[in-house]
């Protein structure tokens, strides 16, 4: 995924005009606005996130059943492997003693799949956004410090990036999972520890360009401290790049969380889409062709990941204008 952003590499456009001091924050806001005004796909991505965020917030209200409790019918039997009502033959389920009200059926131990799907949006968005925030913040700070100070600071931070590039990502999370209690935060932790590397490198090279600009020397001459120059003068102009990498990191985090849960290293008491797929896989939903169970979680993952891609691409279009004519 990190490659996604690197596929089209090049210096961001809008150079000097963007770096005027003072109006930096307003410029930043305008860049963000421009992304969603210009790029309809980015706006679409934002809408996808908005819908899923709403679902996640209201999950207990929308979900017809508890996602973890196996359900029983009137006779006290578990409602196992119920088909979705739109797939079941009329009368078939009534014969077994319950009225089928399950939009996506039930699992092999009688949990409501549709309710799980709704609750799954919570872990996906939680992991996606917190991991992306961690990656963007760490990467931005590393890039700013390495680029601005140069010298040994730069050497240490960039060698650290080399190390991060040498550590296999998914295996690292699995090893982390071996030592900590299963939790969705393992993914966030591992991403924060490893994936700042791309953001850090790109932002560093951008800072190298910006710190040669006249307004930075002007600030230095007028007596601004290093930290003030970094965070007040330089940071606002590279923040759109952080947003770009942040959006791709959301997508990457959701995919990773799904993979790790699928491998069985997630908290079994937290429903996530990856966990649902693992559950389906282990209870042989594949052999039975229970597509009503397998397809929906995957589609949700795909939609949210694509939303991250769309927004990231929107930033690319604005930051790398030479791509627009392609």
């Amino acid at each position, binding site marked *: 995924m990190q490659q996604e952003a690197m596929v089209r590499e090049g210096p961001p456009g809008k150079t000097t005009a963007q770096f005027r001091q003072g109006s930096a924050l307003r410029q930043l806001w305008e860049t963000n606005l421009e992304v969603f005004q210009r790029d309809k796909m980015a706006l679409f991505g934002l809408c996808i996130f908005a819908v899923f965020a709403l679902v996640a917030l209201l999950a207990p209200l929308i979900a017809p059943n508890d996602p973890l409790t196996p359900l029983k019918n009137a006779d006290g039997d578990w409602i196992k492997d119920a088909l979705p009502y739109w797939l079941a033959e009329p009368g078939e389920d009534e014969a077994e003693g319950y009225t089928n009200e399950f939009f996506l059926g039930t699992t092999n131990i009688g949990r409501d799949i549709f309710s799980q799907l709704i609750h799954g949006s919570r872990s996906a968005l939680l992991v996606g956004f917190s991991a992306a925030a961690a990656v963007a913040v760490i990467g931005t700070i590393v890039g700013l410090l390495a680029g601005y100070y140069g010298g040994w600071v730069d050497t240490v931070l960039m060698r650290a990036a080399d190390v991060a*590039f*040498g550590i296999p990502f998914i*295996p690292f999370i699995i*090893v*982390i999972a*071996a030592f900590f209690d299963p939790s969705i935060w393992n993914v966030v932790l591992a991403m924060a520890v490893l994936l700042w590397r*791309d953001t850090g490198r790109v932002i560093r090279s951008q800072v190298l360009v910006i710190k040669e600009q006249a307004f930075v020397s002007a600030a230095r001459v007028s007596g601004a401290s290093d930290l003030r120059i970094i965070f007040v003068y330089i940071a606002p102009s590279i923040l759109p790049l952080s947003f770009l990498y942040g959006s791709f990191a959301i997508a990457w985090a959701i995919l990773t969380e799904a993979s790790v849960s699928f491998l069985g290293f997630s908290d079994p008491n937290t429903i996530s889409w990856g966990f649902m797929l693992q559950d389906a896989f282990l209870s042989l939903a*594949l052999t039975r062709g229970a597509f009503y169970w397998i397809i929906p979680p*995957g589609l949700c993952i795909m939609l949210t990941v694509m939303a991250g891609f769309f927004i990231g691409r929107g930033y690319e279009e604005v930051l790398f204008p030479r791509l627009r004519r392609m």
Partner: protein
Amino acid sequence: MNRGIAYYILGRFLQSLMVLWIIVTLLFLLFRLAPSNPLASYIDTTFTKEQEAALLARFGLDKPLGEQYIIYLLNLARFELGDTFSYSGKSVLDILSADLPNTIYLTLSSLLVAYAVGVLGGIAMAALRGSLFERVGTTFTLMTRAAPTFWVGMLLLSFFAFQWKLLPSAGIGPAVVRYRWETEWDKLMSPVFWRHMILPTFTLALYLHGLPLLLMRSNMLEVLDQDYVTMSRLAGYSEWRVMIHTAARNAMLPVLTALTLGIGYSIGGNVVIENVFSWPGLGRTLVRAVQQADYPLAQGAFFLIALIIVFMNFIADILYSLLDPRVGASAQAQVS
């Protein structure tokens, strides 16, 4: 080869060793300073204190941490990875050396398919820019990159293996004695093995083809703007010749570097697919080792995967600087 390049390679090599040493140290700290005793799952509650001490001594866990660290480094350097906890009597190296070829076959075959499709697809998309084909193609590629690979694998499994019963669903061969191949060569010559490889290869290739395709497409578009391409058009060469001979050859370079890096990262990323298809490779062993708290095995598998990635990063760097001396050190940042 001139002197500058030799120095560059040596420098990169030393740097890779350094990176590897840091990774290995982090690994040591992670495994030794973990809240739980590495032998916790191994030591039965019925063990007496003496038995427990004897066991700790056997694995060298009674020594001071510094000494353990030195022994650990020396052992890794000699590729002595110790004994497994969960497979009785087998060394970590036994298990891993049986797994490694399977992982490599799967990685190489899927990368081969992915890069062939990706490069050709990228050329086609660049040539047909703005057409319906391009729009449908890029949307499809975007979707394959957004779909979780294990889910795609599950869908392919349920259709090809379970619904239509066309292809085997798991492993590298039937669990019958006559399919335990004597040598790797026998395995590679066996049609049964290749039949088992089709689904996982296809699943991985479906995901992996996106990067070379998008890279190739954007490089082609860039190259097509260059003067020498315009010149060869003006010289009256056919559009086909311009595309393939002039443009594609020059647009290939970053794709080749991406392929080299891809080998390393795919070996790390295969973990999930190996588990979907019960493919007996490094990733599946790593997952099992962690589940069974077999720390020596987990540590060995992780070390081997990291070693491959660092090595391939090194090769990619060298390759890039040899092929295009202008770019030199910034090579890695472009494609990783």
